[in-house]
Structures are given as structure tokens and as C-alpha cells.
């Protein structure tokens, strides 16, 4: 038995999980209908796939949610897990699930997938016969992902950086790399049986004034880490940042460099997709205005030629949306996309050249680290502040980079911390902004820029 299989036996042997029958699971995946694989839909490249977020504690309510989504002609179903499961606290998830079932009240903010188990969940997934995407935020997602794949969930979001730096203060980053390596290995293993399993990175990060060069570098790194383990389909992603032009520039550079780096690292056969997240910052408390913001986002998603869009709802400012509200948002987005025709192809040579230079400089810093493995190079680079995510709570992150918006809404770097940006790039960034004289005003502008959509 291989070491990986032995490890899988240990990981899946858990008090709160189903007893795993790997032979049966392999058989299920090998014979699963193509419709369940998002990769099958990506291949057609005939439309922008629409996916909301959503998860309820009980099977019954989750089933209702999916039924409601199906009524809105949904492309990709979401499965968002609860926060106990994200912290691997299955005992608490179990307790809260029981309470939710007994009291018809939602005591969890998502679906406790491990506790429900794959045998139960698979019935629901196969019933709807739509691709399902797993959304979580877990540094150690080994058991969760095993359960998801066995359930028929063939798209796994997350990564060692994008699910760590925005959410955790002190989970050791080196361990997160190790645990995501396992996830990628298992995804790669199952990818040989049928259509490939899709891995997706979480580009929005902290969703707070993160400059495009940081987003792109982290997307490229997580892509390379997955491809290294044999993953054959990967989605890079980012979220609306507040300037349509900067989104287009980001998309053009990200697409170009993702392909280039994948090829250079020997993954010419890997499929790379682009996912666009609607605005991930604070939403207005006015629902009509929220609808407008969502609609604008949909237009930009089409402009950046994304393969999938992850949408928000008009209830965003108020917590977990009702299923009806969520489904309405899917229907609205689909309508906008259906009626939006004849989009121009846009680019900005100067901006793209500058962004590309920045990204290459940061990638060089990673690759030039003397460590012998890619993940260790990345670890060292983050630890030394050469990669720095604004507004991350994690103790390893330097938090020295300061960004602000220019008059066009573009996010610009005004303090580069230890980012190894070429002088000319940094000069370009700074030349775009007119900083107020008073430092207090600069802070006020940053506060204003964070809440750009309020």
C-alpha cells in the first residue's frame, strides 16, 4: 500500500465521518455522469457559468436550496460548509446539526459535510446532476475534501495561501502547504478516472485593497503547487477591485502568465480557467443599490472574459441570504449575461506591461529562494515579506504594504514594504496618485477607498 493510501486511511478514520470504502468511491467517480464535472462544462467554453454561494445545516434545507437554484437555471451549485467544520471541530458541528434538525432553526452557517457524510450527500448531488463547488476556508481540509469528492463534488476551492492569510492568525503556514499537497494529490488521483477534478484558488484574499500584482503572484503559485501534484484543471480567480480597466488588465496579464508558467513547468496539458468574484468588500445597506452593484459586476465579468462568475445577493449587507433571494440573484445575472452582446475586446498596453513586470519580479523572488521545494520557497518569501497581503491577520504576514486608489479607482501601491518591485514599476504606481498633504487625510482616503461601493 502506498504511503498516500495509508495516510488516507488514517485521515478518513474519524469518529464523525462515514467509513470510507475507497474501491466503491473510485467506482462511483469512474462512472459518474459528465454533467457533475465542471471541467466538462468548462471545455465547451460556450458561456460564462454562474455560481452563487450557499449552505444550510440540514439535508432537508440544503435540498430545498438546490431545488430553488434549479428553478433559476443555475450552472454551478455551491456547497458552503459551516465554520465549525472549517476549524475541524466536527464534535461541535454535530451538536449544532442535531439542534438545527430538532428545532427547525439554523444553528450553523453552512452545511456540515463531514458529519452528513458522503453516502447521504451523494444522493443529493446525483439527484440534481449539476456540478457542485466546495467552498470552505479550511487550512487542513484533508477529510473535508475526501468527503466532498466521494460525494460527487468535483470542484474544490482553496489553497494553502488563499485560505490561510485572509482567515487565520497563527495556523502554521508550512503545515497548510503540507495539507493542501494532500488535497491536490487526491484530486490528481481521481482526475485519472473520468473528467478531471477542478481545483480553484481564492483570488480575492482579504478583499481589501489588495494590489493586482499580489493577487496574480499568489494565483500563479497556488496553480503551480497544484499542477506539481498532478492536477489537470485549475481555476485562477480574482474579485472586482473597483476599476473596470484594472480588472481587464488583471485578467489579461493573469491569463497570459498562468498559461506561460503552467507550460514552463511542464503542464502543457493542464486546463486553466478564470473565475471572477463579484465585489467582495462591504455592500450598501440599500438592497436596490446592491442589485445595481451586482449587475455592474456581471458586466465586468463578461468584459474580462471569465469562465465562471461567483455572485452576491442584495442581502449581502445583512448576513446569510434567503434561498429565494439567492436564486433571484442567479436569475438576474443570467438575464444580464443573455442580453449582453457584442462586447469589445479591451486592453491597455502600458498598464499591462507594468503589471507584468511587477508579477515577474515577484515570481523571480520566489524562484530565486534557495529552498529545494516550491512550497518552501513560497513559505520563505512570505516570511521575509517579499510577498505581503494587505490586511491579513496572520502573524507571518508583514502587513507593510500600503495601497490606495487613484482617481480612476485603480489600486496603487504607495508603500511597497519589502516587495521586490522594480524601481520603475513602483515609480509608475506612485505617479498615478496625488496623495493629500496631511497624513490624516491619507488615512481617511484609504478608509473611503476600502468602502468604495458603500
Amino acid at each position, binding site marked *: 500500500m502506498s*504511503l498516500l493510501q*495509508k*495516510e488516507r486511511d*488514517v*485521515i478518513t*478514520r*474519524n*469518529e464523525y465521518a462515514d467509513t470510507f470504502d475507497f474501491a466503491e468511491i473510485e467506482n462511483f467517480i469512474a462512472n459518474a455522469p459528465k454533467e457533475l464535472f465542471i471541467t466538462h462544462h468548462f471545455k465547451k467554453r460556450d458561456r460564462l457559468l454562474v455560481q452563487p454561494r450557499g449552505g444550510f445545516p440540514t439535508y432537508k434545507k440544503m435540498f430545498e436550496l438546490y431545488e430553488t437554484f434549479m428553478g433559476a437555471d443555475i450552472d454551478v451549485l455551491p456547497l458552503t460548509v459551516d465554520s465549525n467544520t472549517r476549524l*475541524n471541530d466536527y*464534535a461541535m458541528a454535530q451538536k449544532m446539526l442535531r439542534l438545527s434538525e430538532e428545532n427547525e432553526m439554523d444553528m450553523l452557517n453552512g452545511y456540515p459535510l463531514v458529519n452528513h457524510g458522503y453516502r447521504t450527500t451523494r444522493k443529493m448531488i446525483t439527484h440534481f446532476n449539476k456540478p457542485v463547488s466546495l467552498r470552505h476556508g479550511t*487550512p*487542513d481540509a484533508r477529510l473535508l475534501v475526501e468527503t466532498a469528492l466521494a460525494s460527487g463534488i468535483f470542484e474544490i476551492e482553496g489553497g494553502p495561501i488563499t485560505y490561510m492569510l485572509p482567515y487565520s*492568525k*497563527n*495556523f*502554521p503556514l*508550512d*503545515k497548510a502547504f*503540507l*495539507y493542501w499537497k494532500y488535497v491536490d494529490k487526491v484530486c490528481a488521483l481521481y482526475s485519472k478516472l473520468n473528467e478531471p477534478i477542478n481545483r480553484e484558488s481564492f483570488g480575492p484574499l482579504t478583499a481589501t485593497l489588495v494590489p493586482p500584482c499580489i493577487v496574480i503572484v499568489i494565483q500563479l503559485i497556488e496553480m503551480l503547487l497544484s499542477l506539481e501534484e498532478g492536477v489537470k484543471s485549475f481555476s485562477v480567480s480574482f474579485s472586482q477591485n473597483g476599476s473596470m480597466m484594472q480588472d481587464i488588465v488583471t485578467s489579461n496579464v493573469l491569463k497570459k502568465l498562468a498559461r506561460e508558467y503552467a507550460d514552463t513547468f511542464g503542464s502543457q496539458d493542464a486546463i486553466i480557467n478564470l473565475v471572477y468574484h463579484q465585489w467582495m468588500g462591504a455592500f450598501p445597506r440599500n438592497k436596490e443599490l446592491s442589485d445595481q452593484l451586482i449587475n455592474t459586476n456581471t458586466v465586468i465579468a463578461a468584459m474580462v472574459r471569465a469562465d465562471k462568475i461567483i455572485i452576491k445577493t442584495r442581502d449581502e449587507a445583512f448576513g446569510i441570504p434567503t434561498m429565494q433571494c439567492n436564486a433571484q440573484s442567479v436569475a438576474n445575472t443570467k438575464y444580464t449575461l443573455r442580453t449582453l452582446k457584442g462586447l469589445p475586446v479591451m486592453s491597455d498596453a502600458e498598464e499591462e506591461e507594468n503589471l507584468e513586470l511587477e508579477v515577474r519580479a515577484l515570481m523571480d523572488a520566489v524562484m530565486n529562494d534557495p529552498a529545494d521545494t516550491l512550497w518552501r520557497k513560497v513559505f520563505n518569501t512570505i*516570511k521575509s515579506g517579499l510577498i505581503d497581503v494587505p490586511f491579513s491577520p496572520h*502573524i*507571518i504576514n508583514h502587513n507593510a504594504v500600503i495601497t490606495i486608489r487613484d482617481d480612476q479607482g485603480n489600486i496603487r501601491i504607495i508603500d511597497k514594504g519589502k516587495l521586490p518591485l522594480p524601481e520603475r514599476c513602483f515609480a509608475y504606481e506612485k505617479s498615478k496618485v496625488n496623495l493629500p498633504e496631511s497624513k490624516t487625510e491619507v488615512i481617511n482616503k484609504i478608509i473611503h477607498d476600502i468602502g468604495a461601493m458603500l
Partner: protein
Amino acid sequence: MSKLLIDVGSTYFKVCQQSGINQYFRDFNKDIFDDLLNKCGDIFSNYAKEDIYICSSANGGLSTLIIGLTNSFSLKFAKNIAFNSGINIIDTILYHKIDEAKAPGELIDVVILVGGIDGIANVFDEKLFHFLRNVHYNNIVYVGTKQDAMFLSENIQELKVLGNIITEKLHVNGGELKEYLTNLYQADIVGKEDIKHLYAITANQIYSTPYIVNRSLPLIDANFDVVNPFIVVDIGGATTDIHYSRDLVRDNIVSESGFDRLVFKKLGVYKSRETLIFAAKNNEFVYELLAYLNVTENILEEESEKALRILMQLSIFLVLYKVSRLHPLYVTLHLEQLKTVVLTGGITKVLSYEEAESIMQFFYKKVLGLHAIPNIVMDYEYAIWTLGMQNDTASRS
């Protein structure tokens, strides 16, 4: 190119060649070198001095006293660095309580003084010198604020001053102190007459065993059926070492290796037998535990093979108890997330897998309320140290 690896323990010699590991019970009437030569002399003749690597835990480790300004920074950082440098015996004193503190009776190998970020001054005063007058120590090192270094050097003879272990962002910077302590430990090992002679057969530096084990941890899961997060429990005659994956504990230290070490200094089945029994008798679970093992309290006073096994089971229980949330001291490990327990050291020669499993089941059910237990790996051959040694040879060549 094959190498010969030798671990000199307090009870056994372990000798590792390509063909496998052999163990030899030590003859305490003999000098270590003579004993080793007597038992394995013919093996040495097959290897060049450059290909023989030795580590030792026979000297029992260094004793340390740490005096620091706060729990969350000075003491926590210094303890972390000391444990990871292979230092065993640690007492700590919070500086603002130094007036009430009692000086340790025994001779201390190294006193560590720490407090304050660089830039602040007058952290330490007369109280420190007064206290130190009653402490017997061989070495003393200062790793606190730069501004106090001069003042302390003027008042403490032979004070070694190193870079501050607390950075200006209040993070840990352990490099210099770790190197100093590791070297001190090395010097202590080779300073022992017995060990010094071993340089007759090796051209390589002799390391301490805890240091070597720590180095092997990142390699373990690739070589054994060990799944992260894991702990390695080394229950010895005098002390118990525990090495653990850092994701089992959530403290705000950015570390290098992903693993930390902790030592229980008076928990062992031979030399520390008395304190082990004392701790066991005072544990809230002891009667249930003895009933579960189907023995009575009297067994603890017996000198039988059976008593030894029970004692070892008790020690596994106590170690886990001491790092569980029921015992909030230096660290609390999230044992419910633990995937593997590696048992190594003397106990693997006595306890069966079933006996280890049964005590783990008791612990998990009683203390954590869980029925599923982590995977248990018995390091029967005490092979973990060979990984760290081999790694050492690989990185040097």
C-alpha cells in the same frame, strides 16, 4: 557510500548500518568508549572515521534557569528556543517576582536572562544581582534589550551577550541563542571524559540525540506510516521528551521547523520512578485507570515486570494528560486533531502495541470523550534518530 550511525543512550547503544539496527545493553562498570569498542569494535574497522556519525543522550542534558520579564514574550520565547536546542531541565522566574523566588539548590549549567525590546533601558536592576549571588551556575547569557547589556556586563562576571530574541515587532528571533545553547550542549557532551574518547573513532562532530531527533521530524512522514499532525513521545528512564507538530498548538510564534519540543523533567520509569508514581497517584483519573487496567494501587509499589508495564502505561497517560486542556500549563495541544502518536525510547522494548493502544483508548474516551484514537506507531527499532543522522550526512556531503 555507506555510513555507520551510533547513538549512545543512557541504557543502550544503538548501532545502525545499511544492514539494519543493532542494540547493545550498556555495561555500566565500563567506560563508554571501552564498552562500545568491546561490543562493536569489529564493526568500526569496516568504516573510515569520516563515515562514522555519533550522537549521545547519555549525559542527561543541560540544566537551565530562565529569568524573563513577561510570560507572553520573554519567557515563552526563551523556553521555546531552549527546548528546541535540546535543553532539558528548565526553571523559569518572572522578573517582577524575583524577590519572592527561591534560588535553585543545584548547579545550573546555563542561566538565560531576557527582557525588553531593543531601545528600552533599565529593565534590570540590583534585584537581579542580589538573586544571582545565590545561584550556582557555569554559564550565563543575556538576550534582552541592547541598552541594558553594558550595565549587566559590568555587574555580572563572564556574561555572554547575544542578539535580542525579541524583535521590534515583538516576534521571536532565536537564531543566536539557539546556536549558543546547541554549542554549549555539544561542549557539555564532548566535555564528558567518556564521550571525548569517542573522537578516536569518528572524524565528525558528536551531536545530542534530542537535536538529531528534532531534525528527523520533517522527514518522518515520508519514511514511516506517520500522518500529520503527530507527536513523538520518548519516555525514558529519567525524563520524557515530546516533539509535536506546531498546528496542534496555537501560539503566536512564527517558527522555522514546524515542530516544537517539550520535556517533562521528572517523568521517567527508572530514575524518576518515584515522581512518576507520585504524579500518578495524584491524578484525578488514577483509580478509574487502574481499574481499567485491572490492577490495584499496590502494583505501583511492586518491582515486577508487570509493574513496569503498568508504570509505562501510566506514563503515556500522564504525558498526554499534561499536554491536554485539562492541564493548562506551558502548552495545550489540540489532541482531538492528532492523527499519529509515535512511541519511541525504552518503552517500545517493553510495552506491546495492544497495551499502548489500550491506554490511548482510555485517554481518548475519558479525557476527550472520543472513541476513535490516533494511529499509533511503535518505533521498536528506535529508528527515528537514524533519519536525522542520515539527513545530517546528506546535507554535509
